């Protein structure tokens, strides 16, 4: 139930962002996707920086997803079994995960205005990590808890240790729900990235000169992948609920 709220939220956010970009681009009276661009030198530089930053975001995004899944498994399968700290940590994550992504976006924008190019990459990365990790951890936790206790018990009763139970049973059984969670998180990260790029674009007068409107096109790509991944996520979730 909670996750479907997240999906609606991310779709709403994406729609908002798309509408925003459409309006903005139209007011400039330029097409979104333009090939054969002519950059002046500074524009080319700024554009290169932007593109490089985007590429560097990919490993950060994947890394934080991987890390989140590992944390979720550690929390559910190990910490929950042994320590009262579990309750506190789980609660903190719930709180972080329920912060609307728009707030992260605003935070990022605020810092963005203050910061230099290098700093802006850092802000972008931090926003994505902060945004992605709590939701991924939480949705993975839900997926792990969703695995039938009897399956675990049956495996333990055969002499599997916890590692084996997790690898052979919990993970495969929770897999599609975990992926659904990842898609939701990615779609939110993409939407925020799109927003941040727009702002970056705004800040760089060099990029706005002439016909260099390649940035909106990358924004469109980001947003459509965001939309796609939230569609995949809701599809996977439906599938996971059926089985």
């Amino acid at each position, binding site marked *: 139930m909670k996750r479907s709220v997240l999906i609606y939220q991310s779709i709403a956010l994406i729609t908002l962002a798309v509408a925003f970009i459409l309006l903005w681009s139209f007011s400039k009276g330029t097409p979104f996707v333009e090939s054969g661009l002519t950059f002046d030198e500074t524009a080319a530089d700024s554009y290169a920086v932007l593109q490089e930053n985007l590429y560097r975001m990919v490993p950060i995004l994947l890394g934080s997803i991987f890390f989140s899944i590992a944390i979720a498994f550690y929390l559910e399968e190990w910490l929950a*079994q042994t320590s009262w700290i579990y309750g506190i940590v789980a609660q903190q994550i719930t709180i972080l995960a329920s912060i609307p992504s728009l707030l992260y976006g605003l935070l990022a924008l605020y810092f963005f205005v203050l910061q230099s190019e290098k700093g802006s990459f850092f802000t972008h990365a931090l926003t994505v990590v902060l945004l992605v990790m709590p939701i991924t951890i939480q949705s993975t936790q839900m997926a792990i808890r969703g695995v039938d206790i*009897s*399956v*675990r*018990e*049956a*495996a*333990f*009763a*055969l*002499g*599997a*240790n916890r590692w*084996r139970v997790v690898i*052979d*049973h919990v993970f*495969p*059984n929770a897999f599609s729900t975990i992926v659904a969670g990842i898609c939701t998180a990615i779609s939110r990260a993409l939407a925020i990235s799109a927003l941040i790029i727009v702002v970056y674009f705004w800040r760089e007068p060099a990029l706005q000169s002439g016909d260099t409107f390649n940035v909106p096109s990358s924004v469109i790509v980001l947003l459509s992948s965001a939309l796609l991944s939230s569609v995949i996520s809701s599809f996977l979730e439906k599938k996971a609920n059926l089985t």
Partner: protein
Amino acid sequence: MQSRKTDPILQVHNLNVWYGKDQILKNLTFDVLPKQVTAFIGPSNSGKTTLVRCFNRLNDLALNFKLTGQILYKGDKLYTPKLKASKISRQIGMIFQKPIPFHKSIYENVAYSARLRGVKQSTQLDTTVEESLRKAQLWKEVYKDLQASPDILSNGQQQRLCIARALAGAPEILIFDEPCEQLDAAETPKLEAIVQSLKNRYTLIFVTNKRRQAARVSDVAGFLYDGELVEFRQTEQIFTNPKDKRTENYVTGRLG
């Protein structure tokens, strides 16, 4: 019925079990002899499941579980920090109320427990799978569909698959916790026949709340009532000549 002069495989001494503040088992003492069927009977919530889960240390999974007293498996302490629960459960298998096949093929379900104990060679796996399925009297029904999902099997067949899977782990003791509870009536005799055929090779512990079933399958029976082991004797005697009034009420159907 023959009086064997064998060492007990399980010795339970002054066993007390709590879940949180609730005492579930109260001062149980008894021995389980090898290559026999030992049944535990008793009304709902009397602690039968809790008791047998002490043997394979499945209760360790519950955070608020507490145990005092002693359980010896082949003379060695079952509850010591040195001994890993997974090592114990490899030797003490368990069949649950509900059949719980894994999301793997029929073959892989059975091979799973063989792999857990280190069998790697595929020919050896093949023989283990076949032998185990034969012992569980399922081979003839599934040998053509070994790669199929267990979903195609009936409830009763799935339960037999779980028995085969447990056997493939080469356990010494096999615990059945009300294994017929969720099966079709026609499956019950099949399962009881399997229990009889396994008896001379394994030590069997059989939990049931059907008195007749306990009378049919077991050599020794224990009557649990509200966490107490009221009586623990030869099955025949429990049913024909109960010592305790509560046992008498239960076996005659006036209680539980």
